[in-house]
């Protein structure tokens, strides 16, 4: 039974903390005379840190439906709250270290960042389509502003403009689907929608509505062909924001994709078939095709990129494709693989972006592969770290990315979708080509400027904190895999 509003507050502490932090930031922004001070960053750090601690403090247990069925408090939601909050935490550090942000007002930036975080918290726990829509927009709208944060810079503004138009269109298609679902079932509860579908009411229009909803989710995770916004936005946005987009909202997008489809379409008896109504739609084929197209387009286009931010944008599209492999069968093992991959992806991708920021700081905003030439001798620690992240992203053992891929591949192999495995394998080879290009440039090319790049203590420590899990999860991943598989048990009220 779902809890009432007052009873739910106790399960809403992380969200309340983030909200309070946002309000404090606004207040500080109003009263302070120095909007550029680092105090905003520190306050955000404290707020997000507290939210992480509070996420873990109330055990999720079997899960609870809160706020009259609007949201869920379960292991799945907690997993994604911790994940997205961790990403935000790292991004706050990145922002404070990024020279790009020097001399600009910091307050609004952190307000947008934390609003997005609040949106991601809600998105990963939403169990009602009204809530789902609102939280998706709460993720999107501050993201537009983050992308366009350098309003005096053409690239940034252009990126934000494209983001707004694309995002609004995608969410328009999605709620058009929601309006169908509501009209056909008379409910806004996701679980109720699932029950109506199981009862066999108006199957075809329901399916049509569901794929329209998938467009909205596809836009959030940047799956081809709903990906077009992401390369432009990633290139134009401030680099810390790009790093944030590539991990946080993407993870939240996977959370909502998994929760919606798992609640509505997973067969009650996982033994026979994993999807409901596979007779009407070959869901595995549909999502396998989506996954294959996404990873192939992402990797092929990445090969031709010279701007590292844009290259990483395409690489993150490709990674969404890999992660969709786990979604193809809607089986617990596959979903667990997605969750596990998101954890390793968090560290390796944010780590890579961290080095991009350090290089950009040192080269006066340089973002091209040629700016990384000779990094091996100019800043050995950063260069070796980036090499570790890139090899992990490629999926080479003994790095964490390899284990993540093993889990994703294993489930698809188990269920006999071999062609997808072949496609993914070929894609990994292509990926090696462009990741290795950066590594080669760092260690074999002669730099134009040979002066050593000093990496201060904080970014050094942060890099170490990213490298460590990337290496450790490559050899000892059991606990994280267990947490991921525990988090998959979701409630359906």
């Amino acid at each position, binding site marked *: 039974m779902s809890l009432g509003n007052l009873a739910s507050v106790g399960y809403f502490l992380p969200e309340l903390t983030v909200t309070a932090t946002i309000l404090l930031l606004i207040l500080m922004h109003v009263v302070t005379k120095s909007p550029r001070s680092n105090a905003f960053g520190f306050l955000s750090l404290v707020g997000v840190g507290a939210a992480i601690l509070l996420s873990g403090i109330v055990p999720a247990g079997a899960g609870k439906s809160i706020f009259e069925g609007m949201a869920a408090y379960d292991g799945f939601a907690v997993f994604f709250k911790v994940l997205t909050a961790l990403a935000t935490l790292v991004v706050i550090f990145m922002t404070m270290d990024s020279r790009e942000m020097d001399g600009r007002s910091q307050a609004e930036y952190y307000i947008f960042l934390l609003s997005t975080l609040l949106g991601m918290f809600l998105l990963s726990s939403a169990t009602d389509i*009204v809530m789902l829509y609102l939280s998706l927009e709460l993720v999107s*709208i501050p993201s537009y502003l983050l992308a366009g944060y350098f309003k005096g810079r053409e690239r940034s503004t252009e990126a934000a403009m494209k983001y*707004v*138009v694309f995002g609004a*269109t995608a969410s328009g298609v999605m709620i058009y689907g929601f309006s169908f679902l509501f*009209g056909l079932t008379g409910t806004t509860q996701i679980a109720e929608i699932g029950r109506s579908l199981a009862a066999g009411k108006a199957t075809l229009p329901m399916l049509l509505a569901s794929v329209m909803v998938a467009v909205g989710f596809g836009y959030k995770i940047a799956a081809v062909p709903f990906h077009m916004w992401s390369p432009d936005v990633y290139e*134009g946005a401030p680099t810390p924001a790009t790093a944030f987009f590539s991990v946080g909202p993407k993870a939240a997008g996977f959370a909502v994709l998994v929760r919606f489809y798992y609640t509505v379409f997973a067969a009650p008896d996982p033994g026979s078939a994993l999807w409901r109504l596979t007779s009407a739609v070959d869901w595995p084929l549909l999502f396998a095709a989506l996954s294959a197209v996404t990873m192939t387009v992402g990797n092929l286009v990445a090969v031709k990129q010279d701007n590292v931010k844009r290259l990483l944008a395409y690489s993150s599209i490709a990674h969404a494709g890999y992660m969709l492999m786990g979604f193809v069968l809607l089986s617990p093992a596959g979903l667990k693989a997605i969750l596990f991959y998101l954890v390793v992806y968090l560290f390796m991708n944010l780590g890579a972006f961290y080095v991009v920021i350090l290089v950009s700081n040192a080269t006066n905003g340089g973002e091209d592969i040629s700016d990384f030439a000779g990094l091996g001798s100019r800043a050995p620690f950063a260069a070796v770290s980036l090499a570790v992240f890139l090899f992990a992203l490629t999926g080479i053992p003994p790095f964490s990315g390899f284990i993540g891929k093993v889990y994703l591949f294993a489930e698809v192999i188990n269920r006999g979708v071999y062609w997808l495995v072949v496609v993914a394998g070929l894609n990994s080879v292509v990926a090696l080509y462009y990741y290795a290009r950066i590594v080669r440039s760092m260690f074999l090319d002669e730099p134009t400027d040979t002066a050593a790049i000093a990496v201060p203590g904080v970014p050094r420590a942060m890099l170490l904190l990213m490298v460590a899990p990337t290496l450790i999860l490559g050899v000892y991943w059991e606990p994280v895999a267990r947490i991921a598989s525990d988090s998959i048990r979701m409630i359906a009220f």
Partner: protein
Amino acid sequence: MVEPSAYLLLSAILFCIGVVGVVMRRNVLIILMSVELMLNGVNVAFVAAGSYLGDVAGGIFAFMVMTVAAAEAAVGLALLIALYRLKETIDVTELRILKW
């Protein structure tokens, strides 16, 4: 009493006009208006479904969509002004630094 299907047809037409506008028009302002048109088509569908089912949730959802649309429009227009200051044009075909 008008048939519910008529409302749905209206909503579909509004939505499609919006979609075509987003894809075809070059003026950013018109594109933002077309987005609004799409969302209004959605609102018609929600309100119609709500009154057909006798469920206020449809109307509530429509209000939520309007609120969000307003927020989106505010952000979109703010960016539009920033854009105009920089480039003195609001033609999307001029927004082509970021591509490929």
